[in-house]
């Protein structure tokens, strides 16, 4: 297996409190892994460790075989609160330019790259809008477009669609799936929506709360490409849904 991400015996304690305990997860290149678990179990914390925004108390996270010590440009992060993650004073194009500049892309290539990235996320007509003039869905598309400007090998997403309405959420789910398939990105997707996790993931990792531990891993054997109607009605989907729901219910009920 071509391993991109490896959590080995990762633990994190803050002020004597165990937040994550002995996490072991291996993720293969191009895999789409969904992380689920009850609120406060440490999903965001796990993602931040992987992003290099925080360091574990013990254990190690390897990315392409090298330990994560700081953020890397080939690892992009989509934050849930798109309203805070975008520069409100810059246009959509300007927000993408922020990433292009950080990536040291020559300035004369910016217009073409920006146009291409905007088009990828269906924002071709919105380049001159400021985030404040865009809907939540558009803002989240913009944040994803900015992440794609990093040409990431790994995309980390923290409940990216949690604040969106159901229809926008489904549209974006399909777009992210298509994007992952096209680019071969590895996606680490945190969500509290179990159905979303099954719909998107090749694998769903369920965490336990206090301290956060890997409770169980569910391989998702659903055909690709996925489809909002047929996939969600697929017998395997329903079976997984049943298993995951009863597992989570049992796991947190204890």
């Amino acid at each position, binding site marked *: 297996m071509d391993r991109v991400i490896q959590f080995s015996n990762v633990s994190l304690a803050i002020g004597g409190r165990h937040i994550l305990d002995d996490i072991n997860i291996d993720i293969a290149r191009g895999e789409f892994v969904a992380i689920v678990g009850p609120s406060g179990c440490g999903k965001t914390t796990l993602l931040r460790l992987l992003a*290099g*925004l925080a360091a574990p108390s013990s254990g190690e996270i390897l990315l392409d075989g090298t330990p994560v010590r700081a*953020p890397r440009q080939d*690892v992009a992060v989509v934050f849930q609160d798109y309203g*805070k993650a975008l520069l409100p004073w810059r246009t959509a194009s300007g927000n993408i330019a922020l990433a292009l500049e*950080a*990536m040291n892309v020559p300035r004369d290539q910016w217009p073409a790259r920006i146009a291409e990235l905007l088009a990828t996320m269906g924002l071709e007509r919105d380049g001159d809008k400021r985030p404040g003039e865009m809907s939540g869905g558009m803002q989240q598309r913009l944040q994803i477009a900015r992440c794609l400007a990093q040409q990431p090998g790994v995309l980390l997403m923290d409940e990216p669609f949690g604040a969106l309405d159901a229809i926008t959420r489904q549209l974006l789910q399909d777009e992210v799936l298509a994007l992952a398939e096209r680019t071969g990105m590895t996606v680490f997707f945190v969500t509290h929506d179990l159905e979303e996790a099954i719909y998107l993931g090749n694998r769903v990792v369920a965490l336990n709360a206090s301290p956060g531990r890997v409770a169980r891993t569910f391989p998702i054997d659903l055909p690709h490409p996925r489809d909002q109607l047929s996939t969600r009605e697929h017998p395997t989907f329903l079976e997984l849904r049943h298993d995951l729901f009863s597992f989570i219910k049992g796991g947190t009920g204890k």
Partner: protein
Amino acid sequence: MNQAAPLRQPIRAARPLPVDLRPFLLPLAVVGLAEVMALLFVPADSFSLAAPHQIAVEFARMLVDGTFLVRTLETLGAAMAGLALGGLLGLAAGVMLGLSEAADKVTSMTVEVLRPMPPTALIPLSLLVFGFGLTMEIAIVAFTTIWPVLVLGRAAVRETEPRLMEVAKVLRMSFFRRLTRIVIPGAIPRIFVAFRLAAAIALIVSVTVEIVANPRGLGYGMMLSSQALRPATAFAFLVWIAIVGWGFNRVLILVERHLFGGLQGDAR
């Protein structure tokens, strides 16, 4: 809808005048009253008070003969130069202290001690060091305007959205780029407010320094007329200084609206 409109029309109040004159009622009344009082109680050659019409004549004279122009340029020049110097120093310090908690710990007590020092207290020392003239005035204005810009700039920088700083980390932006792409642009609307406050202070300090010590500008003009026992001239200066102060602030507000008017709403 179409039918309701004509019905509603007559109910509406009379068409409002293009300019609302009500704010002018009070000053006009005061001036009128002063004129009457002066007529009754103040001799025309008084050394302490003057009638509004005498003030108006002096005002017109100094407006036309260039007195106001020259003295206003002197005062505004010193105020602006002092503001530029003090504002830039205050901004640089404010940004640095906003970014570095350690630097803030080291300096905060010093800042708190220096900040409330009255600008007039600096006049004797400043005279000693710089002598009379433009330099000492600029120095005092600069010293006074450092603080509001420093304190407000520091607060603005501290309130940079933490999520944006994380975005910067994920993008591995250099310190300089974080500063110029995220911290400063995010703080700019509030930095401008700080400069506007500092500008008002700069004008006050300039005029004060001129009245107390420095033989130049509007403050000195007013001081001279008072010493020459010409109340009408002194009053005319006073009115002019009020107009300059008001106009100055108006301009700054307009500039601020023009630059950030559309933005502040969705920025914060």
